[in-house]
């Protein structure tokens, strides 16, 4: 290998500076730079500037876990990363979004919607989710009539929480609670149901006239039938008790099929400990919910969200 041993280099142009080669090596990552305007070269750290030529100057020191924030002159300071505004001063967390599905467009016309707790939080300790709240708004199905929405509690992997088999095939005890209108059969007690927890006591109203199968979020068509159907969208909030023997309280408003009247009913479902799904008998509780409608109806529009309150210290 040839080597040129020389102290200085110089361009032959008359005013070019003499560049004096450094006598020592730099450290890893350093660049060759001039130490002064006399052309003495040294190894040093590189600095940055913005595209408009303003220097971006890094601070002399920075503690761990900081972000660099600039002033108007490009001088960076190391500041504490923003705290989560959803937490209080004790770093406790309120309700957080666990899962969400918007029923519209290509995501519409679906028979079942499953929302579950993200797997990253609860692999080893199920009680990290203290409670869940399911919020459903603007819910409507494809064309037809006579349907009732219902929910099914799920495991985290999307399988049914209750077995629905055994000596008692009914997985949940369903009790109709209250409704906003007194009917002759108001004193109603439905003993059991298998998996399905109905959200409405009666069928939801929906005209089968045209146009139907409308996505009410995006449709610009106007017709009386469509207006009826859009107005008949139901809304519900369900509180899911995340214990091994879960209870569900569903609060639902809708327009009923029978007399097209506004209805509000609350229903309570109590889990049957004896009907936990196979292999699911040791300290587990539901980790999700599936939303469906009977009579083979598909969801055409609506928004469903699953919120959860975490045990303190699980999320930050």
């Amino acid at each position, binding site marked *: 290998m040839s080597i040129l041993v020389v102290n200085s280099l110089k*361009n032959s142009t008359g005013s070019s500076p003499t560049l004096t080669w450094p006598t020592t090596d730099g450290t890893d990552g350093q660049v060759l730079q001039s130490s002064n305007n006399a052309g003495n070269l040294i190894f040093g750290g590189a600095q940055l500037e913005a595209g408009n030529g303003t220097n971006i100057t890094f601070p002399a020191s920075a503690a761990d876990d900081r972000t660099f924030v*600039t002033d108007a002159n490009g001088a960076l300071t190391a500041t504490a990363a923003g705290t989560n505004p959803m937490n209080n001063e*004790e770093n406790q967390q309120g309700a957080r979004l666990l899962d969400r599905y918007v029923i519209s467009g290509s995501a519409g016309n679906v028979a079942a919607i499953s929302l579950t707790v993200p797997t990253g939080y609860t692999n080893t300790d199920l009680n990290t989710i203290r409670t869940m709240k399911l919020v459903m708004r603007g819910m409507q199905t494809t064309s037809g009539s006579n349907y009732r929405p219902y929910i099914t509690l799920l495991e985290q992997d999307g399988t049914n929480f209750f077995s629905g088999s055994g000596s008692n095939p009914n997985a949940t005890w369903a009790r109709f609670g*209250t409704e906003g209108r007194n009917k002759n059969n108001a004193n109603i007690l439905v003993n059991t149901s298998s998996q399905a927890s109905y959200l409405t006591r009666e069928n939801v109203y929906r005209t089968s006239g045209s146009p139907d199968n409308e996505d009410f979020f995006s449709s610009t068509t106007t017709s009386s039938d469509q207006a009826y159907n859009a107005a008949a969208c139901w809304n519900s909030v369900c509180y899911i008790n995340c214990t091994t023997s879960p209870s569900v309280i569903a609060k639902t408003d809708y327009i009923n099929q029978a007399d097209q009247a506004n209805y509000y009913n609350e229903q*309570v479902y109590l889990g049957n400990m004896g009907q936990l799904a196979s292999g699911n008998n040791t300290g587990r509780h539901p980790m999700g919910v599936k939303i469906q409608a009977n009579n083979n109806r598909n969801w055409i529009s609506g928004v469903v969200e699953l919120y959860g309150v975490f045990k303190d210290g699980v999320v930050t």
Partner: protein
Amino acid sequence: MSLLTVDQIQYNGGTALTLPTATPGAGDMLQTNGSGVLSWRDRLQKVTNAAGSVTYTTPANIQAGKSLGTAGGNTMGWYSAGGDPMKIGSHIGWRLADKADFNAIITTYDGNESASANQGVGTMNLKIPDSVNASDVSSYYMEAYNLSAQNGNWYLNVKPIDASNNTIVNGSQIAHLTQNLNNSGNYNYYTGATSHIKINNGASYTSMQNGSVNTQYGDFNRLQTQSSSMSFRDLNFQLQHYNAKYDFDGVVEANGFYSGNATNNFATSTVYQGRGDQGNFQMATNYAAGFQLEMGNGGSFKKGTVCLYYCLNDGA
């Protein structure tokens, strides 16, 4: 000193590099234009990772108060640091004030579970952070999930309190209008005035009936074989409170089970406000800084989650 005057330097077989003719400033670095022409530069607009495989380009300019981040195509940009998603302009949405998160074996209400079983608390104080002035709070929202207690009957008292945990209510001057619906088809309403907000099944203030809670394991992770000593008869409520200094008002909705039959569930909606027949009186002595939840009829809370949210006045 040896001086080599040369316009270009070329590694044997490599690219010829043309030395600069300009005089460098202190700290100036040699950079190439990609065509073998070297020039001086005091700051870099491009940096690479350690392996030199990725090159990042600095932002086009400086944006004061922003932090350095990455944009598409390995170009860096300025971004809002942290930020508060609950804030739009001067409007501030709900923030978590306080939270009680417990599972059968608590001795305190701050979310910490104690090591000993069979403990509970008869009262819980949930308040805004010390750094927040109660006078800056326009309203509160409190949501309670799955509250359970000891065996026997109980109801819930909610007391607006100041920062020192003292009640702010003057005597029995909170007027209630409670509408109650239950699964036996009954519906009724009740009016009354107390020193606190009552949450129960309405008429005559009868009690919530509750079963036992598994005090050894809690109800979130209990085993199926421990089903004999557990309850799914929980109380849930949602309370909205307008935080006026002298005449606050609000509404609370609750679900639970009323005494007399373990399967009887109820839903109530209660409007509370200052009594209208007292003339120029002041119902409260100060702004509420939070609420005390008290187990009416004695006893202790064993399980549940309570979140108190607050909404600040604009600019607070």
